[in-house]
Structure formats: C-alpha cells, structure tokens
C-alpha cells in the first residue's frame, strides 16, 4: 500500500455500526452506496458485476422498508446508456449524486456517452463498472475493456481498484469528488476478484487526495472582501444597462434564491443559458428567458444593448458567444463568478472576477450593496427591456393549417404552469421546449446541453420520475432522438411511471434539415425519414402504454392535450407537426447577435441583411 493511498481511519466519534466487520468487497460497495444516500441505482447486470448485484439483492431483502419496498431499488434499463442517462436525470432533478452500476467490457463502453454527457454538463454521477479479475487485466480477456483509459479522457476522475483494502475508501472518495467543486462523473472500475475479496469495513476511510482537497478548500473558502465588493459596485453604479447572464452553475450551486434576491435588490434583468433555465423564474418581471443561438430575440437584443455583464456560473460557450469578440459589444465591464478557476477569462477577458461558491458570493454582494443603500437608477433600461419584450416577443405561424410545434408546447405549458419537470432529446423540439416552456424553479429542465446527445430524453425522464415521484414529468422528444433509446419506453411501463411522452414528429432530423435548408441549399442528405415505416403508437402500445394517441388535426389539439395530461399512468402522445417549422430566432454560426435571424413571425429590429451561404467547414454544428 502506498502512502498517499493509505486509508485514513476516521476519528472514533463517528463510529459506523459496521466498523470492524468483515465483509466482501461487493458488500462494502453496497454499504457505502447506502451511507452516501444513494436512493435509487440504475444498471444492467453481467458476469463481472454479479457479486455486486447479488449484494444489492441481499441488502434490499435484509433492509426492506415497513411497507415492503426496497430501500435501494435497482432499476434495469434496456441498454446501459439508458442507465447512465437515468442516473443523470435522477441527479439533475434532485441535486443528488446519480449512481449507475454496469458490467465490464460492453457494459462499461455503453456508459461512455452518459459519462461524457455528464462531464460536459457538470452533473454528479458515480458509475461502478465490473472489470475482469486483476490477474486477467491486460490479457485481452473476455469482456475486458481499458475502462480507466477510456473513461479517464471523459470523466472528472476514474479509479481502478486493484487492492480490496482500498475499495471502501475509493468509493467514498468517488462520491466526494463527484459532488464537490464543479460537479462531475466519477468512474470506479472494480475487478471481480476485488468484489469477492474479504475486507474489514471501517465505515469512514477516504483516499488521500491532497492536491485536489487543497485546491478545493481554497476555492470553497474564498469570500469576497470589501475591496472586491467596492470595485464591483463602483462599476455597477456607473452602468446604465446592466444584465445578468446566468448559467447552469447557478443550478449546480443551489444559488437560485441568492440570484433572485440580488436581481430584485438592484433591478438587473436576467438572461439564462440553456443550462440555466429555471435558475431564474422565467415568469418573473426581470426574466429575459434564454439567450444565445436560439435564445429569445429580446434577450439577445438586451445582450447587444447592455453595458455591463454579470456572468454567473456561465462559460461564454460557443452557443452563446459564437464570436466572443462580438458578444455584448457595448459592455464596458464584465464581471464573472465561477467555482472553476479554469473558466475565468477562458473565452472572454473579464474586468472583475471571483472564484468561489456562487450563493455566498451573491449574498455578500446583496448585503454589501444594501447596507450602503446602493441603488442603480435603471428606469430607462427597464423601459427599454420591457419594450424589447413587447416588440420582439416569441411567436409562430398561427395561421398555418398544419400543427405548429410551438403551439403544442404553449398549450402544454398552460397546463403545467411552469411546474413540470421537462426532459428532451436533441434538435428542434429541444429548442422549442426551451423557448416556450416556463420554468419557475431549478432542476425542472433536463437537457443534454453541452454534448447535445440525442436519446437523452426518455431515460432522463425515467430517472427524474424516480427522484420526484409526485412531479409531472414530461419528455418532449423528436422522432430521431426517441429512436435512439426507444427500448426505454418499456422501462417506463415496467416500473409503472406516470411519465408523459410527447413526440413531436416531423418525419425528419429536423434540426439538421433546418441547417441543410439554410446552409446547404436544401440538399437533405440522410435526414429525410418520410419513407420510414415506424408506427410509434403501436410501438408504445406494444410496450404497455395504455394511453397512446396520435394528434394530426389542429382542432383537436387542446382537448387531446388536456386528456393526455389528465391520464394517471404512462401516456404517449405523438403529434404530427409541420415538417417545415423552423427554430427561430437563430444566431447562425460565426454570426453576431446583430445578425440574428428572427424568422417570419418574430419582429427583427435590424435591417442588416444576412447572407445565408454555405458555411465555412470550420463552423460547428
């Protein structure tokens, strides 16, 4: 055993009732999962993980709740990718660490996409992978994959446990790393003989990770001093058009209340990123909804007009600041708070920065400004923003006889009233959902933001429903996206989850088609699905959906949606939408917000003609 990995026994005061007990590695894993508060596990079995599955089975049998329920149910998907996204949906909806357990080789490689997706969106996960026995490692054994190499490139961290004496400490440390600092996924690769080995449980050990912990302590204890507050307010009080740009970091930091208090105290309008939806109540007077490539026109115009940007848990990524130099071109001052030092000034230089927890920083600023009676005079700016919201309101083709997807979301939103949990696939439907749903609180909006992974919606909704059994959980999906993990339809009914699946079927890969229309002269390579024969209603029925209907006529929209949402159990609604409906506004690749295309139904304020020619090959889709 090396010095740095020595398992440090905890002080006797927090004595674990099982401390000193002999148990197998598999039993120790399950005990640590229980101790860490893992409420639901997601995974698919296989040879190399069997000891852990057996230990979960025995744990649940021995600790059954008074009503007979299992304390730590293990939910089985159709594919390990589904398990990973269920764990991610669970984590996103609850704020807790999601747990997935899979076998070696193909089980582990099927987890790569959800691990990378969670890394890119800073979602805390612990994934436990079975591995071939230590004696077989590196021998190209049956179902062996180099998990630590593969996952090392994708995850926040990966551990390969070869010494049973380290197992307990490693798993506990995995939870610590997943949830601390900027959250992320941690993979623990456990050879089968380590699962079967006997060890002495100590109930508290952790690995020494001195570098990580020292850096974390420095960041977490960072507080704004008077000088920093004074500098911030000196700039804010000079600003005439200040704006908050809030990202997913506000959600991760549980700082929505602190953000609301700050924005209300000083009157700053708030635009959120795709990941930040819900971080600020979208029905609040100061809310501008979403900014960026498909943000609202009024949010993007406000970004164009503002002279002060306050970035909170947001990273100026290319869907927001496609052209960093032209983002918020009139801003004289940019302030940024983030928990990750590497995000400060990464894309755009900032004038004021703070690396530390968002909640305490915002609370400090609010108290500091209040105590000094500081009140920016923003009446003109508020009037300007109100006018932008009125003049450039979101809208669509209301006269079209074909069903418009925006109308479907708006109708569902009238029932949900900003309280539903909404997951999505990736594509146009994802953007319409982001644009037309209200989100009154964080953790209601579950979407694959950074990776943009099709197939996320259905399994994420399943995980979310386990996290929030009483909530209305909606999966807004596309025909391409839902196909990717369609096997999970059956998982919904197997577990009797009252999820409402809305399939906006445009019989094509709509978002790609939109780009082909705009930038590839309408050459619809590989995106047309009109010859596909899938009957989604029969598929849903075959998977046990008692309510599965197709909506094809505008006149039936309101009544069908009311009936669909009122159904008690799992329900599947396919809506045949106008295949030519587009997502607008759109800030094209390489364009600035001034060149935003607002489409035919949202007023543009700029006459700058936009050339939609073939895009340069370097532009990202």
């Amino acid at each position, binding site marked *: 055993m090396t010095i*740095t990995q020595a398992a440090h026994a905890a002080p006797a005061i927090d004595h674990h009732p099982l401390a000193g007990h002999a148990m197998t590695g598999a039993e120790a894993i399950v005990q640590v999962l229980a101790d860490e508060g893992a409420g639901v596990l997601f995974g698919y079995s296989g040879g190399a993980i069997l000891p852990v599955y057996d230990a979960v089975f025995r744990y649940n049998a021995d600790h059954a709740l008074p009503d007979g329920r299992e304390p730590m149910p293990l939910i089985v998907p159709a594919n390990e990718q589904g398990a990973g996204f269920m764990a991610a949906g669970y984590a996103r909806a609850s704020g807790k660490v999601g747990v997935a357990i899979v076998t070696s080789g193909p089980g582990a490689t099927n987890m790569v996409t959800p691990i990378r997706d969670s890394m890119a969106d800073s979602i805390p996960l612990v994934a436990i992978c079975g591995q071939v026995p230590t004696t077989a490692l590196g021998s190209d054994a049956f179902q062996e994959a180099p998990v630590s190499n593969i996952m090392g490139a994708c995850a926040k961290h990966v551990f390969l446990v070869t010494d049973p004496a380290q197992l307990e400490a490693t798993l506990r440390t995995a939870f610590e790393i997943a949830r601390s600092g900027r959250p992320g996924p941690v993979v623990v690769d456990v050879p089968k003989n380590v699962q079967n080995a006997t060890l002495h449980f100590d109930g508290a050990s952790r690995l020494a990770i001195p570098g990580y912990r020292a850096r974390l302590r420095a960041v977490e204890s960072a507080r704004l001093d008077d000088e920093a507050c004074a500098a911030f307010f000196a700039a804010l009080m000079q600003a005439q058009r200040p704006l908050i740009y809030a990202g997913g970091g506000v959600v991760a930091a549980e700082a929505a209340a602190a953000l609301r208090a700050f924005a209300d105290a000083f009157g700053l309008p708030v635009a959120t990123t795709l990941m930040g939806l819900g971080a600020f109540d979208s029905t609040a007077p100061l809310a501008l909804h979403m900014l960026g490539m498909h943000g609202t026109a009024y949010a993007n115009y406000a970004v164009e007009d503002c002279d002060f940007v306050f970035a909170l848990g947001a990273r100026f990524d290319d869907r927001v600041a496609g052209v960093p130099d032209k983002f918020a071109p009139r801003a004289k001052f940019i302030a940024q708070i983030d928990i990750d030092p590497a995000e400060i000034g990464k894309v755009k230089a900032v004038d004021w920065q703070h690396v530390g927890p968002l909640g305490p920083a915002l609370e400090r600023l609010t108290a500091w400004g209040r105590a000094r009676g500081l009140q920016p005079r923003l009446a003109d700016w508020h009037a300007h923003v109100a006018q932008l919201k009125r003049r450039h309101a979101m809208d669509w083709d209301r006269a079209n006889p074909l069903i418009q997807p925006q109308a479907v979301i708006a109708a569902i939103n009238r029932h949900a009233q900003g309280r539903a949990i909404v997951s999505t696939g990736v594509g146009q439907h994802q953007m319409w959902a982001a644009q037309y749903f209200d989100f009154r609180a964080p953790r209601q909006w579950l979407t694959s933001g950074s990776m943009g992974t099709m197939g996320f919606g259905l399994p994420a909704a399943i995980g979310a429903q386990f996290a929030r059994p009483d909530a209305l959980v909606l999966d807004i999906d596309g025909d391409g996206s839902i196909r990717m993990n369609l096997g999970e339809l059956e998982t919904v009914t197997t577990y009797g989850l009252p999820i409402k699946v809305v399939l906006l079927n445009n019989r094509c890969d709509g978002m790609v088609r939109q780009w082909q229309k705009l930038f590839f002269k309408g050459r619809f390579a590989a995106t047309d699905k009109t010859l596909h024969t899938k009957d989604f209603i029969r598929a849903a029925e075959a998977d046990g959906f008692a309510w599965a209907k197709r909506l094809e006529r505008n006149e039936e929209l309101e009544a069908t949606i009311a009936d669909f949402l009122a159904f008690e159990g799992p329900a599947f609604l396919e809506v045949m939408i106008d295949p030519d409906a587009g997502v607008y506004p759109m800030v094209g690749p390489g364009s600035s917000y001034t060149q935003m295309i607002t489409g035919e139904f949202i007023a543009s304020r700029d006459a700058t003609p936009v050339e939609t020619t073939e895009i340069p090959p370097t532009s990202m889709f």
Partner: protein
Amino acid sequence: MKHTLSLLLQNESGALVRVAGLFAARHVNIDALTVAATHDPAVSQLTLVLHGDEGTLEQILRQLRKLVDVLDVSSLSLVGGHDGSRLAATPA
C-alpha cells in the same frame, strides 16, 4: 514561446495517461517529458516542455490543476513573475 512545467503527481494507476491525455485533448503538444521518482514513492515529478502563447500556458496550467492526482504544478518560466503560476486557485 517555450515553457517548462514542473508537476508533482500522485503515483496512481492511469495518472500519467491523464496528464498526457489532457494535452492531447486540448491540442497542446508536449515537446519533451521526463518522469522522475521523488523521495516519496507515492509521488512522481514530471517535467514537461511545451510551446504556446501565454493564454495556452495559463489554460493548460488551470486544466492540470483540475486533475485529481496532480499535487502541484508550476511553470518554471513564470516562477517569480506571475503569481497565478503557483498551486491553487486564488480568489480574485
């Protein structure tokens, strides 16, 4: 511009791969690399040479500090100059 980084790394399985992988994933070439034992068998010392502008260097330093097994990283070309070059993310 050429930069020399000195890095103390916990001797964990896969730690060196993660350092090398970070450079590859962020498109920064490692011009030279030496790995040496230290008096602590659990810790290795890496010396890396790379070239790039100040922004590239700053980003690679910050990203290296996010790796769990990294104990300390400093840029020898910056030592004594720029206080962002030492361990730990200091608050503004």
